[in-house]
């Protein structure tokens, strides 16, 4: 069905019948970064990889990546957390819920 309907329709005749949306998960293309007034910045050295920011993010904007990281004090982690700045709306839940306060909300400058 995804092949039957083309996405760039110019008239109503090309709109899928019934107004169905045959393209799953396509809101990922929408960038919601303009909603943001504050940007979360993760301090990778302070972060203890507890996963709470990832779990509590409403926009799936905290990404869990398989990336090794060794802190200056010698602690080695197999995963890292990154911020998906295209989708982060800047709600600040991650910074508020972080148990070690490794996430800081800094004002967004445009």
């Amino acid at each position, binding site marked *: 069905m995804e092949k039957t309907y083309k996405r760039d329709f110019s008239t109503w005749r090309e709109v899928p019948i019934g107004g169905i949306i045959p393209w799953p*998960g*396509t809101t990922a293309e929408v960038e919601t970064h303009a909603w943001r007034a504050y940007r979360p910045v993760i301090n990778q050295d302070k972060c203890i990889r507890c996963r709470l920011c990832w779990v509590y993010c*409403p926009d799936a904007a905290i990404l869990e990546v398989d990336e090794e990281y060794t802190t200056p004090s010698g602690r080695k982690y197999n995963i890292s957390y990154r911020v998906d700045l295209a989708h982060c709306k800047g709600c600040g839940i991650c910074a508020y819920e972080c148990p070690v306060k490794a996430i800081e909300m800094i004002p967004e400058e445009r």
Partner: protein
Amino acid sequence: MGVNKPIKVLWDIPREERFAPGHSMCQGCGAAITMRHLAKIMDKNTIIAMGTGCVEVTTTLFPRTSWRNPWIHLAFENTAAVASGVEAALKALSRKKIIDDSRRIKVVAIAGDGGTFDIGLQSLSGMLERRHNVMYVVYDNEAYMNTGIQRSSATPYGAWTTTTPIGTKLRGKPQPKKDIITIALAHGIPYIATANIAYPVDMVEKFRKAYEVDGPSLVHVYSPCTPGWRIRNEHTIEVARLAVQTGVWVQLEIIEGEPRVTIKVPRRKHVRHYLRIQGRFRHLTDSDIETIQKMVDEYVEKINKWVGEEAIGPVVE
């Protein structure tokens, strides 16, 4: 696909995102967290029947959708009715060998509190009574947030909404919240649970159990709404956690009529901690708060008596 083993720790929650970001739900929306975790436990064949509400209008703005499952848009009143129809059709197709009868396709109905407590109550009751194999999820943000914060029967006592304004005659909603769990219990369905976004492991485990059960199941999820409750964006989880810690919300799980409190609170906080953080309760005087505290005390006593142990303890601090 889906989750086959019990969720016991945070690391058991699957990493794969089946609910796409980029939806237009508010900053710090509680319902978005609910939907993200609900989508994680679903199989890719699961059919979602979604009643009108915040999540419905914000995730499927044409020509895009956040869902990666077959999804059907419904009006407020017929969420459970259409979910029952889809389930009955799947059963018929399976009987006629049109689809392989070893394939297990679950139907998940999702609706907000307006579409469940008020408008969709009769179709929900019909679905539960006919024992359709449907998992019903209510995300409860305690008013009609999508249309502009009108009161619903899920709005708690004393809360400000645009239709229960604060003045000399009326000071917030004069009636208490409707108890949907007891209504569902009266139908004798196999699985009923209340979940809360502040306790994600418990919430995902309840979703999983409700998904696995054969027969109707209802999960009532507490999902704070930042503009409607007049809270700061980052306080979403804090408010949800305080609701459990003060005893306003009790994490219940009722399997075959046997109740159990999954998150026990040995030392309960005073309800003012929960009320003072929210702008919708800003007008409450100290005597109003004591009235609400008495209502919470009665509710907690009822729950403790029902589960047969002191699951929610006395008020300290």
